[in-house]
């Protein structure tokens, strides 16, 4: 009996101990450090500027994106060791806007609502919760396009002008026609069938799940199966799945075949175009292309789309909301800072007062002098706001998986769609399936 008393006493002591220490952690108000959490290092430079401007110290914690939501969630739920400012990626943005994690920026003293006209519509809209309160802002916009090789376009399609190529690519018939011509000349239109998923999404923009928790399957999404199958069956692609080694090496010439093997392999092909967004230029293409620098251009596909994006907000439990707001302000609507930032990184901003001034000045050597900035801003204007749900990332992945199984010939279209519904139901039992 007695030992239990001793034991429980010890336990009580220990619990008191942890409770005390967690209290000191939670406040984080005992020093002048602004804590920022993000999933990339892109905030590093802005933070330096902010520190110099305000004479404060900012501590940036970078968590790789795969672990980011998992690591952040317990911290936000418990408030222990929570950051003052944290970013959200489009993949989990919508899971967070409707919780109380981010401070309501529509309220006093932020009044972010009044900024609505200054941003690209869809970007501003995405930072709102379901009641229309602004929870997070973003400095960038991430519309996508088709990056293609100028030399191949010139050779096969007769022109390398982005406007003319965009004209050809603006309909599915045009896409397949170009695919056929490219194939005849020994090229591949796209690296893989997944490249067209964004256009399938942008064609008839509707949310995956509506307010009644019903899954919405559009004809455009069903057509995605057929279009992907057509690409494969007609051999318009290079069998290089996104992010695979061959996908990467295709950016820099004939798909990743060793020089000595080149003669033997009949499968060797050169990829004509990649569907990538704004950041795809700086973080993907530029990093992986050496021989093809200056041989690229960007144009539109059958429909406008966007891919990715980072939003920024203040933790609702933060004790340094003023300083945190200063930082958010600098990142999202400080004209001087944003102008420098855009010129330095080429990041396409969503803050219109700045983009209006600078968009004419861009000329990208990688794209043979094309002004990609203006192009992307134009695309951003035509993106439908309000169609992103918290389920998108996962449901898109499930759909993509079934499309590939259909394309590979492992399933019929009906079987693949049925399996897709089954998987959605398994992942989200609360969603009602169509019919």
């Amino acid at each position, binding site marked *: 009996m*007695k*030992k239990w008393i*001793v*034991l429980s006493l*010890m*336990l009580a002591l*220990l*619990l008191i101990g*942890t409770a005390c220490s967690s209290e000191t952690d939670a406040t984080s108000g005992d020093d002048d450090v602004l804590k920022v959490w993000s999933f990339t290092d892109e905030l590093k430079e802005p933070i330096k500027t902010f520190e110099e401007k305000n004479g404060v110290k900012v501590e940036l914690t970078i968590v790789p994106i795969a672990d980011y*939501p*998992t690591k952040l*969630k317990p911290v936000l*739920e418990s408030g222990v060791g929570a950051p003052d400012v944290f970013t959200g990626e489009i993949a989990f943005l919508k*899971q967070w806007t409707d*919780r109380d994690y981010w401070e309501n920026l529509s309220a006093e003293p932020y009044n972010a609502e009044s900024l609505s006209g200054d941003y690209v519509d869809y970007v501003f809209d995405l930072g709102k919760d379901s009641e229309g309160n602004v929870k997070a802002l973003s400095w960038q916009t991430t519309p996508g396009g088709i990056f293609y090789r100028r030399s191949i376009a010139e050779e096969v399609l007769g022109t390398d002008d982005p406007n003319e190529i965009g004209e050809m690519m603006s309909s599915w018939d045009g896409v397949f026609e170009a695919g056929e011509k490219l194939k005849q000349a020994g090229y591949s239109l796209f690296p893989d069938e997944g490249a067209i998923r964004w256009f399938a999404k942008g064609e008839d923009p509707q949310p995956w799940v509506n307010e009644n928790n019903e899954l919405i399957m559009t004809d455009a999404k069903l057509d995605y199966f057929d279009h992907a199958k057509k690409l494969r069956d007609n051999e318009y692609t290079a*069998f*290089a799945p996104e992010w*695979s*080694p*061959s996908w990467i*090496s295709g950016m820099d010439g004939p*798909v*990743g*075949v060793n020089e000595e*093997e080149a003669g033997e392999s009949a*499968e060797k092909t050169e990829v004509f175009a990649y569907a990538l967004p704004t950041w795809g230029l700086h973080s993907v293409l530029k990093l992986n292309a050496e021989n093809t620098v200056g041989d690229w251009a960007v144009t539109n596909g059958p429909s406008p789309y966007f891919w990715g994006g980072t939003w920024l907000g203040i933790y609702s439990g933060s004790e340094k909301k003023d300083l945190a707001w200063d930082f958010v302000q600098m990142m999202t609507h400080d004209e001087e800072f944003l102008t420098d930032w855009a010129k330095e990184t080429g990041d396409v901003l969503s803050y219109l007062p700045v983009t209006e001034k600078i968009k004419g000045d861009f000329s990208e050597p990688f794209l043979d002098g094309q002004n990609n900035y203006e192009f992307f801003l134009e695309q951003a204007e035509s993106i439908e706001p309000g169609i992103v749900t918290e389920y998108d990332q*996962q449901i898109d*992945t499930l759909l993509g*998986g079934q499309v590939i*199984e259909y394309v*590979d010939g*492992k399933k019929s279209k009906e079987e693949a769609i049925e399996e897709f519904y089954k998987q959605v139901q*398994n*992942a*989200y*039992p609360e969603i009602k399936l169509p019919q």
Partner: protein
Amino acid sequence: MKKLDHKGYFFIAPFFAIFLVFNIYPVLLTFYYTFTNYEGYGTPEFIGLANYARILTDSYFYEAFFNTWIIWGLNFALQLGIALLLAALFSDLRFKIKGLGFFRAIFYLPNLITISSVAILFGIMLDWQHGSVNMFLQKIGLISEPINWLNQPVTAQVSVALILTWLWFGYTFIVLMAGIAGIPGEFYEAALIDGANRWQTFVHITLPLLKPIMLYVMITSLIGGLQLFDLPMLITDGLGTPEGSLNTMVLYLYNQAFRYNNYGYAATLAYALFLVTVIFSAITFKSMYRKSVKE
């Protein structure tokens, strides 16, 4: 009655306190979650036995169950086979192979590589069009068309089992060698004098006396194998593709919890996995023990 000194409890209390907080408490909390639809946010809602009812009719769970078994079974058979063969060779008195220490290190080496590196390495090697495995096999004329290893259920499962074998046979080899070293040399000398050949020595002396060690290897491998997660997770980006063939029990659990936010159901899966592991460990133990008693 003698008065006992209770001071000792103070010394062991830290362990129990930590054990309670970090082991027992989460285990009990997880058990509580199995009765809720907890999403990882806010307060869990009590839903009774719904999660248990769901698991019984969940085809994805059964699929994950069989996938895990197939991959583990193939991997274990190969791993034990290779390790036994090597152990027999290296312990053979008549072969007198030199450099045991060297080979032991070489065999064990794969086990020291981080699993993420292993996944990336094999991901590149097994690439359909440009992977070195296909290029090699084509060059020596074993296959004419490249095989899309990670895109067909059977080859994907076999690939993962082979990678696991490569990772673990060295460990098994070392444990078996230790077991063989524990068998008294007199038995082998006696067998030699009786004119037993290598095969007879192996089957009638080495194998029976190695049984306890093999039991140990099997149970630890089983417990580890049923928790197979990292390799399929990294190779398939957590999707368990192709056609769900690399969807293992723990990967399924992980996805339910962290991908789809069904924490309540994931907790139920965790308990199901626990039950499966206990049952099969018990069966293994029982069957091995009974056999050795008969002999």
